[in-house]
């Protein structure tokens, strides 16, 4: 198991490096020149060259890439000052350190992701399991029907509807905004409750359906029947035998969902006018801001890889066949 984690970690770093390289060269190869954009209309060749030098664009490509990647590990010095590790460079557009920009935005994204995940896991899996346990009853039908309707909604539809009801027409709540948890826990909770709940609602519906079908599939397994044939009660069999197996597909999807949300929930952020990682990624791409784009890409990729490893560890915890092979 330790070997496995080590191997995966080494693999993850190699992958990160490759993603960095791919992003870098794609961006450079793209037919746009940030320097001439920054220089504006009446740009003298001298001024253009100055900008290039200031941004480090005059160096050979390989050198630029190497400076960027090594900066992540060792830190880097810019004319504007020192950028300590992990240094993702300085934004062309704003001139801010990319890492600190990301760190400014990240708590919001983390709140959305973690808050959403807690809600949709608890409610979704709970509802799905109850529906499976009471299969064919009214409870099941309501749960299945509701989740069917809700999962066909989209955030950009449900979000404005909820905002209209709770904020614009009644004034019961304020516009969603992010207040750091450390400064004002209540404000943090209230400010983020609408986006988190809307996001969670749609995911809850999906997780309910998934948990239900996965559970029903497990209940039909031979070993579950064996447990029943041993005289174990229905509830015991449900919670001990069927539940474990039903987790595997859920963990798979959860890994994908959470890692993509940590890389930025663009639609949610846009819908509620929040400034998270997703917005940053859009800004970077629109402004042709190479360091920012690369920073956000690598940051997102890091989470995808990290959560991939965590998912595999969870599989091993659930299933001894994986653990002991």
């Amino acid at each position: 198991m330790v070997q496995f984690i080590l191997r995966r970690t080494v693999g993850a770093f190699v992958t990160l490096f490759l993603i960095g390289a791919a992003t870098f060269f794609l961006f450079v190869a793209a037919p746009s020149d940030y320097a001439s954009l920054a220089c504006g209309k009446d740009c003298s060749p001298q001024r253009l060259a100055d900008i290039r030098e200031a941004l480090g664009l005059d160096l050979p490509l390989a050198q630029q890439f190497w400076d960027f990647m090594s900066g992540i590990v060792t830190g880097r010095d810019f004319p504007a000052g020192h950028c300590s590790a992990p240094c993702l460079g300085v934004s062309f557009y704003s001139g801010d350190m990319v890492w600190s920009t990301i760190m400014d935005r990240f708590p919001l994204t983390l709140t959305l992701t973690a808050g959403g995940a807690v809600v949709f896991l608890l409610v979704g899996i709970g509802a799905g399991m109850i529906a499976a346990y009471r299969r064919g009853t009214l409870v099941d039908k309501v749960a299945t029907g509701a989740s069917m309707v809700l999962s066909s909604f989209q955030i950009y539809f449900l979000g404005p509807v909820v905002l209209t009801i709770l904020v614009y027409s009644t004034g019961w709540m304020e516009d969603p905004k992010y207040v750091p948890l450390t400064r004002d826990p209540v404000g943090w909770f209230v400010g983020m409750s609408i986006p988190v709940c809307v996001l969670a609602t749609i995911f809850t519906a999906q997780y309910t359906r998934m948990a239900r079908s996965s559970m029903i599939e497990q209940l039909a397994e031979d070993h579950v029947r064996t447990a029943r044939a041993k005289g174990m009660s229905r509830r015991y069999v449900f919670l001990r035998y069927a539940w474990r197996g039903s987790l595997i597909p859920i963990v798979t999807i959860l890994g994908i969902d959470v890692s993509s949300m940590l890389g930025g929930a663009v639609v949610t952020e846009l819908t509620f006018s929040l400034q998270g990682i997703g917005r940053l990624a859009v800004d970077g791409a629109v402004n042709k801001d190479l360091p920012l784009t690369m920073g956000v890409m690598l940051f997102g990729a890091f989470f995808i890889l990290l959560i991939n490893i965590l998912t595999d560890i969870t599989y091993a915890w659930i299933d001894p066949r994986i653990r002991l092979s």
Partner: protein
Amino acid sequence: MTTVTKAGGAPAPTGPGGFLSVRDLQVTFSTEDGPVRAVDGLSFDVDRGRTLGIVGESGSGKSVTNLTVLGLHDPLFTTIDGEIVLDGKELVTATEKELEQLRGNRVAMIFQDPLTALSPFYTIGRQIAEPYMKHTGASKKAAWERAVEMLGKVGIPNPAERARDYPHQFSGGMRQRAMIAMALVCDPDLLIADEPTTALDVTVQAQILDLLKDLQREFGTAIVFITHDLGVIADMADDIMVMYAGRAVERGTVDEVLRAPRHPYTWGLLNSMPRLDSDLATPLEPIPGTPPSLLTPPSGCRFHPRCAFRDRVGGDRCVTESPALAPGRSSACHLGAEQKRTIFAEEIRPRLG
């Protein structure tokens, strides 16, 4: 003696009598295409210490019958009529709680594929100890020790260590041994074995069959042994019930059914089965056609569309009238007793070599 019921349905006088007694069992599944009667009017008895072999091809209803005995069918799609009486207790109407008390305790089951029938998530020891704790109230430690003892009994080397293993760390034969240990841990009165050796290799199958027989002698367990393999049934069973399309078509002791079979379907099975001592000059004689769909079973005798001896029965009785299976040694066929005897002696037996 197992299947012999005296006229009037009273249990055989020897021994404690029909420990398990099934009367006119009907199992209907509702499917998308309509109701399917998987078992239709089945009656049989099993005595303590005896083995009843139920033989039939896929779709004959042999496995369904035994899941219903333990109430393991899906109540959402299944309707059950008739009586299942275990040691005086009616099971069809029993509550889930009452059934739980019986399962794994007085009635245990072994399934076909020991890899899928054991949970991959728990150790072998824990899976064996679990029903023991539940049914005897033993402590965790005592139940574990019992599990190790049972594993030793069924021939797992180093049982104390191997109890901590997971099923995937066992070989196929060892898994089935563990399954048997699990089934016998509470010393059940009745063991239902559903094709327990079908997934195993022949040398391992021989070990497992002998093990079951030896354990039965030690524990005095009654066994219902379900299989499609006549050779296995000949080896294991005291009594045989042959099933076809949801109905029992013939029953009697092993010798009666295999050496002097009276039903055309049983003849067909014997004719189509190659044996190690069969005459190679005689080709196999398969039963023509295929088993019927239970959605639209044939009228009258369900075997009539495939039966070669239909025209020996006067009129169209085979098509219109369903032949009854009398209690005791009998076969559900409209042929006369003498006809059956002569057909077997003159036309079937010589072919079998």
